[in-house]
């Protein structure tokens, strides 16, 4: 092995390890919903290449309002799906779309884009 081969091999392995850690094992920000005056739990979510925040904690049994603001035109994020709640909403670009849910069971429920690439989760406590 010559020097460039050693460098490329080590750099390649380090990069691969970084990709695995970054996408699968790094910690994610968790945000709790804010209860409004009416007892409705509200969360504002920014959609741009992913969901910010992407892990949302809500209380069980109380209505949840998620305000999705799609801050891009990229087609990947044009839909949001909550399969466990049978909800599919189109998110018009640069507009806020309201998704209302009533979580009745404790658990973690995924929400994704139409093709399941962008992901977030609703943690019902």
């Amino acid at each position: 092995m010559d020097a460039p081969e050693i460098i490329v091999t080590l750099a390649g392995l380090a990069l691969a390890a970084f990709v695995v850690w970054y996408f699968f094992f790094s910690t994610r920000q968790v945000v709790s919903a804010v209860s409004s005056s009416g007892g409705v739990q509200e969360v504002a979510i920014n959609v741009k290449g992913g969901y910010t925040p992407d892990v949302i904690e809500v209380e069980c049994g109380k209505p949840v309002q998620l305000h999705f603001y799609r801050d891009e035109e990229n087609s990947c994020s044009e839909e949001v799906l909550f399969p466990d709640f049978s909800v599919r909403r189109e998110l018009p670009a640069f507009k806020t779309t309201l998704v209302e849910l009533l979580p009745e069971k404790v658990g973690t429920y995924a929400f994704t884009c139409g093709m399941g690439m962008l992901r977030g989760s609703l943690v019902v406590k």
Partner: protein
Amino acid sequence: MEPTTKTETLDIEGMTCASCAAFVEKSLTRTPGVQRAVVNFATEKATIDYVPTQASPTSLKEAVVNAGYGVIERVPDTSAAERNAEIDRQKALAYLKLKQRFWVAAGLALLIMPLSMLMLWPALMQQVNMQWLNYSLLLLTLPVLFYSGREFYSSAWNGFKHRAANMDTLIAVGTGAAFLYSLAATIVPGFFMRRGIMPEVYYDTTATIIALILLGKVLELRAKTQTSAAIRALIGLQAKTACVVRPGGQEVDVPIEQVQLGDLIVVRPGEKVATDGLVTEGHSAVDEAMLTGESLPVDKKPGDAVFGATLNKTGSFRFQVTKVGADTMLAQIVKLVEDAQGSRAPIQRLADKVSAIFVPTVVVIAILTFVVWFDLAPVEARLPLALVNFVAVLIIACPCALGLATPTAIMVATGKGAEHGVLIRNAEALEKAHQVNTVLLDKTGTITRGEPAVTDFVPAAGQDATALLELVAAVERQSEHPLAEAVVRYAETQQVAALPATAFRAVEGKGAVATISGQAVLVGNLRLLNEAGVRLTPALEQQAQQLLAQAKTVLYVATEGQAAGLIGVADTVRESSAAAIQRLQAMGIEVVMMTGDNPQTAAQVAGQVGIKRYFAEVLPQDKASKVKELQAEGRTVAMVGDGINDAPALAQADIGLAMGAGTDVAMEAAGITLMRSDLSGVVTAIELSRQTIRTIKQNLFFAFIYNTLGIPVAAGLLYPFFGILLSPMLAAGAMALSSVSVLTNSLRLRSFSHR
């Protein structure tokens, strides 16, 4: 049928605690005309029952405002319609922009390609300055990268910041690497040459990949809009205006949003019914195909329900509005279909799991491909080979087809189902229906009409059939008994003359008596005749026994103290039942019947429609256990029912199908609702499910096989054996085709038609 009270729901704003809700409730309750008011603090809604002659929506709103709170004006239909219009507008704009970006990329790629191929002709190359050529190619590639491909890079970067990787990540990393390598080879060729590497550029790869991927996206977007065409068509069915009759009798055309509960609406021939209601006057035939899939127009007379978006054919009628906006049948169908489209089919679980980890995994494979090629290839070619294979892996692995495989098929199928009057509650129900091998039918209301009809009319010897029927019909027209209604319906079909009846008297539990054209006519059970001292002739006696043996109800007729005839009444089998059952059996499904009737009647009906196995004398509470019994035999059971008492059985079955004319409770418990009271809907539902699952399996197979074979080939696995390498441009072409082919396959479901 004038409702005595009306119900109004108001969205209240400004409530901060439960006592606010109590305060609003009190204020509403004290309003004259309000019978009941409930304010829900959590949902910020007030539900008020009021007497329309004493209170109005305006006075209710005033009461809320006077209490110090606000009422949010609800305009759900306009906002939903506006939202859809906005989404459509944005989609059209996005499609236009995408096409522009594609044409720019395609045009420039067509220039870049031949220029890049100059190196294939050494004689030509000698006359061209290599450095200048590379700079020219760079200039031509920049617009492709920064205009046409910009979205891939911004999306990949935004995704990276969110620790999310999507298909754009692969394209951005792939084309970005090819471009950066080419840029370095253009600006500092000496660096490469000193290391014995030809400074080759890959601008053609970059530009062509972007052009091809954009082509795929253009085709994909065009096809995707067609997947939701059915639901958009449904929404578009809604009438825009309604002709409202004002209290003074004046007819005014108003926008549909202004129509209120209780309004009287005129529908002229050829017009759409504006919203749901009950016919108050007039007769007509209404085409309800858009809601029920039933192709024949349905007769409407006073008292019948009409539904918004259906089409009035012949006559003119007036109806009173009973439902508006989101409560209408059309709105509920749209919501049900939308919900189904938002649900995930269990079959997609694997694809979902793969999608979530797919892109980062491919990036790792691409990095390792680069390393292996760099380490093993001949020194002078190792960098270009490593790069080309790295790019090929990224581009070929695009998971687009995988992501589209199931949802597009579900979208098309649920929409198609709605078109045929088959409402699918969720993707899981659609998937389960294809596994069904046993269909359990509740007899009454599914196989049969669920209402009595005259099956036999037997005049006594010497009696004129028409004359007798005229007399019987004249008596029965006065009666409100369901059996009497059946006789009247039969007389109407025979088009006998309507005679006036006098001295009508209903004899509770026995029948009715009246005088027609001076003759005393008795119609009822045997006790009625016996008590009047009328004796049956032996012939009638025998015929009555025959009818009873066929499990029919017998009505006895006497005129002038003499037995005059018999009428056999039974719940009749629908015309379509036998054919639908035969079709199910031909599909390899066993059809089982269950009924509360005695074994004799059960055998009779089962024999009539070709059912071999049946359960008789099943009590309503035992229906669910019959489903369990079949399931215990290892069968996958679809239960078809229409009544409240069917709900537990519908829920117990692997898949429940509620008949449309049934109750909300039954519909709630069922996975599939058939809008038409006709068993052919069961055939349609199962056929649609089978075809959809077949399509999804094909899609998933193509998507998986494409990636599982494509990635190793792109990585160069075949090179040591066959010398085969996959050009990144070919990979881009194949990738674009893969998602388009999956979409096209799903769209084939649009041609589904019930045979």
